[in-house]
């Protein structure tokens, strides 16, 4: 009985750390991202999908996540795992008016 109680307590205490990673989808539509802000948990994935009939790029030069997904055409998508907390400014290099912020929380 004592053992079971200990396990239950441990799970309860650790629950904030047992977040199952999720995947969020952000579209690229009409030369804009479909969301301007997104809050996710550390370890989550964001999938960027191009919905426009021409190429887009996705990149970030932020300290919390530095990446360049190159360019990809309509219908294709690319994913990024956000493994550090912080604020990530995401842009399209071809279309600089396309900007969004991803807040990565613990």
């Amino acid at each position, binding site marked *: 009985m004592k053992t079971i109680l200990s396990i239950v307590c441990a799970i309860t205490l650790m629950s904030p750390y047992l977040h199952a990673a999720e995947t969020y989808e952000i579209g690229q539509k009409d*030369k804009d991202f479909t969301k301007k802000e997104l809050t996710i948990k550390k370890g989550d994935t964001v999938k960027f999908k191009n919905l426009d009939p021409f190429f887009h790029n996705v990149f970030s*030069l932020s300290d919390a996540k530095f990446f*360049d997904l*190159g*360019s990809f055409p309509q219908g294709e998508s690319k994913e990024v795992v956000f493994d550090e907390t912080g604020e990530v400014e995401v842009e399209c290099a*071809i*279309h*600089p008016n396309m900007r969004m912020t991803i807040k990565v929380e613990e």
Partner: protein
Amino acid sequence: MKNPLKTALIFALCSVLQTSLVTAVQFKDMVFKAGHPSLQNWILPAVPMPKDNISTQASISLGKILFFDTRLSGDGNMSCASCHNPLFGWSDGLPTAKGHKSKVLARANPVITNTAFNSLQMWDGRKKTLEDQASGPLMSGDEMAVNLPVLIAFLNNNKQYTDMFAKAYPGQEINITTIAKALASFERTIISDNSPFDQWVKGDKKAMTTQQISGFKLFSNPDKGNCEVCHSAPNFTDNGFNNVGLASFGDKDADMGRYVQKPIGLMKGAFKTPTLRDITLSAPYFHDGSSNTLLEVVEHYRIGGIIKDNLSPNLKALTLSQAEMNDIVAFMEALTTKQEPFTLPIIPLSH
């Protein structure tokens, strides 16, 4: 026959779009008839202004005088208008600019026509607003090379200037901020929004020729001219950056363009998409001034660029006949607003 509900929806969508700079009407939904609702997103909105620099007659007048005053340069022989000259469509007619002591610079002088609508300024987008941009060339050693403290003292010792600054920016000092604000106010008056194309979009069936309408279709069709992919509504630019495969990108020490601002591989040799409004007035074309005519520009795109290393993914070789290229050029010729005589300001000489 178009579906009336779809037409109504496009019209509603365009009404919303007119207040923004977003293009959302796809080629398949465009109806190439004068005044059609599907084309209304090409009408320019009101000129946007920052809240801390709403134009007034006083700020515009001051900005116009400053813009033409050669004493804003280190040698006292260059004004903003030396490079952005109304005689040359607000550029200078040269392949690339000539700066301080006639030093030949790497890039063409961009026009200031409709820069009020740009979300980024300069060929590489390194300046965000017209206010930010206006101070750049003034103080660049390669361009106007002004000694700022000397300029501020000069303006403060000229009663006409101090009166004009006091009227335009009451309670504010004469400094680089108020100088730049005034210049930006004037630049926001250089607008092209009443071309034959604009008149046709607003419903004047006779404003464009049959050839020009054909050219517009080819311009917008992604499988033909594919021009609208970057030169989009309403200002014929999406403010984007592309390497368009110019021969100069093959040069040793080629200009890296936007890459210096955003070190993303795709941006090597990429430059900002210029507006095409009043484009007939500002040859030569491209950031390196390498094309003398609009037909040469279209031919460059027809072959899909010359240097294909790092070419923008949105560029592709085009299937266009000579007649079709001529149609696209004819369409671009319809983007120039009829020019009215421009009145030069009187420069305040007295001290």
